[in-house]
């Protein structure tokens, strides 16, 4: 078993595997979504999960985050079961799902102030800089119901820029983005991989990221 602290991106060869999934089995409404699913997610990699509609991509992402517990098999975080080190796992995890976690009545700044401080302390300068980077300059204080779906998505993705989390789990983050937004997000994902973090992402886009590996479901 590993003894390294999971928080730091260690350089030792032994602890390169961030997430190890073994023999994962999930059934939904008497239909097997996946069985005997094995994969590793090492540090510094972007893992793209692919599959036809209904093949359980979202379910897999939610299982990995601990939002869904109807599965069998083992999921290890740096060599230990996730339940044994929940606090450290959750502070290293950033999840953005289909429902992006942006309240429509609040502005992007107010949304980020809350969703970021659930993980760590965050300053307004950081938030402003992140919103500028995702192209929401000028919309910082507008209520999110006045923004388009793509802009709301961007407001949610601004968390990626602020977050020091080492594992990002992103469920269809590209859906509402325009081509500029897609390029921007690819760049952000690449940067995360190059600084030793990892990303799990479901999408049907073909991504142009060097550190990419593919996982096919169903």
């Amino acid at each position, binding site marked *: 078993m590993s003894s390294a602290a999971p928080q730091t991106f260690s350089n030792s060869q032994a602890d390169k595997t961030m997430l190890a999934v073994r023999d994962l089995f999930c059934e939904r409404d008497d239909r097997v979504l996946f069985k005997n699913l094995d994969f590793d997610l090492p540090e510094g990699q972007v893992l793209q999960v692919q599959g036809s509609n209904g093949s359980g991509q979202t379910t897999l992402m939610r299982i990995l985050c601990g939002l869904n517990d109807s599965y069998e098999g083992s999921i290890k975080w740096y060599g230990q079961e996730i339940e044994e080190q929940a606090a450290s796992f959750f502070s290293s995890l950033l*999840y953005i799902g289909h429902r992006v976690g942006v309240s429509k*009545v609040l502005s992007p700044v107010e949304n980020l102030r809350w969703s970021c401080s659930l993980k760590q302390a965050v300053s307004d300068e950081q938030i402003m800089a992140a919103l500028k980077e995702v192209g929401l300059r000028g919309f910082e204080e507008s209520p999110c119901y006045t923004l388009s779906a793509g802009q709301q998505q961007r407001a949610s993705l601004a968390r990626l820029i602020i977050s020091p989390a080492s594992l990002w789990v992103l469920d269809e983050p590209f859906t509402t983005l325009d081509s500029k937004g897609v390029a921007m997000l690819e760049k952000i994902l690449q940067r995360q991989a190059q600084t030793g973090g990892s990303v799990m992402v479901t999408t049907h886009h073909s991504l142009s990221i060097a550190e990419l590996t593919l996982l096919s479901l169903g």
Partner: protein
Amino acid sequence: MTEKQTTTSAAFLATLKRDLLIAFKKKNDIVNPFMFFIIVVSLFPIGISPESDRLTEIAAGVIWISVLLASMLSMDSLYRSDFEDGSLEQLLLSPHPLFFLVLAKNISHWLVSGLPVVLVSPLLAYMLALPSEAYGTLVLSLLLGTPIMSLIGSIAVALTVGLGSRGLILAVITLPMSVPILIFGTLAVQSTLNSQSPLGYLSLMLVMLSVSVSLAPLASGAALKISVN
């Protein structure tokens, strides 16, 4: 460790602030239950009798039951929109204890839905011809009782937030659990009217409040996890 505690309190405060901000921006959610409360109480003198003797007798009960009904109306806003926009998932994935985050949401809910009702209750008590010596007891009992209703209601909302059509299920779960508060709340006011000390009933309510504060957020948190699953 201390650093972790600081960030937990920061997350608690951020959640409290956010919910107050949302309530402030969605004024309907605050104003509607409050107006409902005032209107329901006003209907009793019209429907039963404007005679002060009769009204005095039922005043405490009328106010307490109306508070219960109004709190039912306001409960739904507690987790509903968070569930729909995905904020609830972010809340559940926080490394901080869910207990404090849920407690922050409950406190904010009470501040915008319970507290205004408590503050306006002497006015309605006056309208129902409740003798003025009982105002203090009424306000105190509501001050202890309304947070309990927010905390208990929170469990029921958390359990039902994932259901498509909830209809009356919320009231069916919550109202029976609120019966003890109703009993002690009205008895406290009644005993003041009979020139007895209401302290016994009020301290029982204080005990119920302490138990709810320490246990209900745990139950709400567990229920939220089930609903999101």
